[in-house]
């Protein structure tokens, strides 16, 4: 069971952003995708989810061997893929609780029982140290950066996807918030979920240990390895990768 990206080429308007990306995340694994700004990390995450602003010109996306390259975003979600957004949209007038119930029910035949939903919500809110009043607020309206990220991870916890993509979930979080979010992610990790952590920095990887690390540069994955690759990157910085790649090309 896997989320698989094969030779993915993606463009927006006139610009090619991904230039042949290959990546396979098996259930139970945690992968980190690292890269400098503009390397194409968020484009990859958005393309996996089917964001209509990105056009796939070549390659395939498979979820559990089923191709979803042309599927609508809601079909991909129901196939088991979830993305925690770097900049989640605000949904005015829709409370966190109502939104969560709608999303939970979207992947069920029968609507969830009120009681079952309530206890599931409470348990996950405890996990993420979220105040009970939080669920009455309109989703992301007036939320701080940290609250938005917590709301994203709360959705992850409620929807229990097979594959979770965390797009820069660590950015904008202070250390306490980062620890809470990381603890939450760690609690949700397990044999039933594959995780792809997209990040610019290595600090979230100190809390959520990846099995594999991929480094992206200019729309391609240029280096792959185990967790030690992240440590090396922390020490040497992205310029080191750029130089290595330039040297390799020369």
């Amino acid at each position, binding site marked *: 069971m896997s989320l698989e990206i094969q030779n993915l080429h993606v463009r927006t308007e006139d610009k090619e952003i991904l230039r042949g990306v290959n990546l396979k995340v098996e259930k139970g694994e945690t992968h980190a995708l690292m890269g400098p700004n503009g390397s194409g990390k968020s484009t990859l995450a958005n393309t996996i989810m089917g964001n209509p602003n990105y056009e796939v010109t070549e390659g395939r996306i498979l979820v559990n061997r089923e191709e979803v390259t042309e599927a609508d975003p809601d079909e991909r979600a129901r196939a088991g893929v*979830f993305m925690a*957004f770097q900049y989640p949209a605000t949904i005015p007038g829709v409370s966190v609780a109502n939104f969560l119930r709608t999303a939970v029910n979207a992947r069920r035949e029968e609507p969830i029982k009120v009681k079952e939903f309530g206890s599931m919500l409470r348990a996950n809110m405890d996990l993420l140290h979220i105040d009970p009043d939080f669920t009455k607020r309109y989703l992301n309206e007036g939320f701080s950066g940290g609250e938005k990220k917590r709301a994203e991870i709360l959705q992850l916890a409620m929807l229990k996807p097979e594959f979770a993509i965390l797009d820069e979930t660590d950015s904008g979080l202070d250390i306490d918030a980062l620890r809470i979010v990381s603890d939450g992610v760690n609690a949700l990790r397990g044999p039933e979920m594959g995780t792809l952590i997209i990040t610019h920095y290595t600090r979230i990887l100190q809390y959520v240990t990846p099995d594999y690390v991929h480094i992206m540069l200019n729309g391609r994955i240029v280096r792959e390895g185990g967790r030690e690759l992240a440590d090396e990157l922390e020490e040497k910085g992205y310029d080191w990768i750029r130089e290595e790649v330039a040297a390799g090309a020369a």
Partner: protein
Amino acid sequence: MPRSWLEEKRAAALEVYEREPIPTWRRSGFWTTTLRHLRLDELEPRHYDPVDSFEALPGVVVDALNGEELSGLIVQRGASTIFTALDESLAADGVILSSLEQAVVQHPELVQQWYMKRLSPEEGKFPAASAAFWTGGAFLHVPKNLKIENPIQVVYVIDEPGTAQYAHTLGVVGEFAECYLREYCLAPDIDGQALHAGGFELYCLPGSQVKLAHLQDWGSGEVYDISTKRVEIQRDAHCGWVPIHLGGRLTKQTLDIVTAEQGSDMRHNGLYFTEGEEHLDLFSTDLHEQGNTTGDTVWKGALTGESRASYEGLIHIVAGAQNTNTYLQTHSMLLSPKAKADSIPSLIVKTDNVSASHGGTVGEIDEEQVFYMMTRGIRRREAVRILVEGYFEPVIGKLEDPPLEELVRELIAGKIAAAEEHVEEYVSQR
């Protein structure tokens, strides 16, 4: 026999009616409201017998009220008042709820004191028509210092094509009294034309606290609604008014709210949803006649089909009304490529030392929001429905009336479902 004061007023109104041509409302830009399709001479007042139980009321009324607990209820069908009920203990406390016709006979001085104080037949042909021809009508008087818990409900219903309904509601809420008045204008989906020409006036006396809601849902028939509604708020009184427009072939309404004396406060939150070939033309004025008054107006609308909706909201602060603090904003959301909306806030300020601001937008469904919701497994059509409901929610919540809130949400969901193909086509085109 000499003519009564009311006959004098009706005669004066009739003169205006006969003198004035059928109006066309033109405004700068593309906007025109015309009655050229209205066959006025084919419409006539229709009379009905009273009914003796709630269950015997027309189905559209029974459904809308759904067994709610009311403090009072008065229903006018066509030209006839067919049902009146008032909580006995409130009647004993001096509350008056009756047809206006009956009130003129039983409480002539009280009615004469307030009748048409803020409305005039000189405002146009249709204000003159309702002043000249109204029958039935509704009169509410709440004595001072009394608090009424449950809604006082006025209903105007049209359920036959060919009906001309001339309506007049007069409400007077006494000093420091508290009440909640609702006026519903309802019709089932009739096949043909009808007219509702209404006058509504409400006076909130000093220190009173009044909630007011209007619900207009004339169904899919060709109902023309040309009405004037005016609310006067006196010293230190407060009125929160939520007018809701959910349908009618053509609506031309003037909705004015006046903070008439020091310390008075208005909250005006309106909503409209148009569909099919509906045409809606609303003009509201927040009139501040004295200083130290406050106001807050928010109007939100959505349009589907080939409908047209215009909302023009004016803040008017007269000379000398210093320390007025007021705000008006209006938003429209287009859910169909063929719908057209106009949102026009405007400002007349004749004094200094006030705080008044306004803003207006016409927007569309935000594709980013739709994508976000879809990544949670929510289907596009449901995402659109949730976004539209969420857009209206801040206004609906202002009703603070769970049964009516539920009814409005349900009616809006039904309209979105009915327009789904349009909505989907539009969203995916962009």
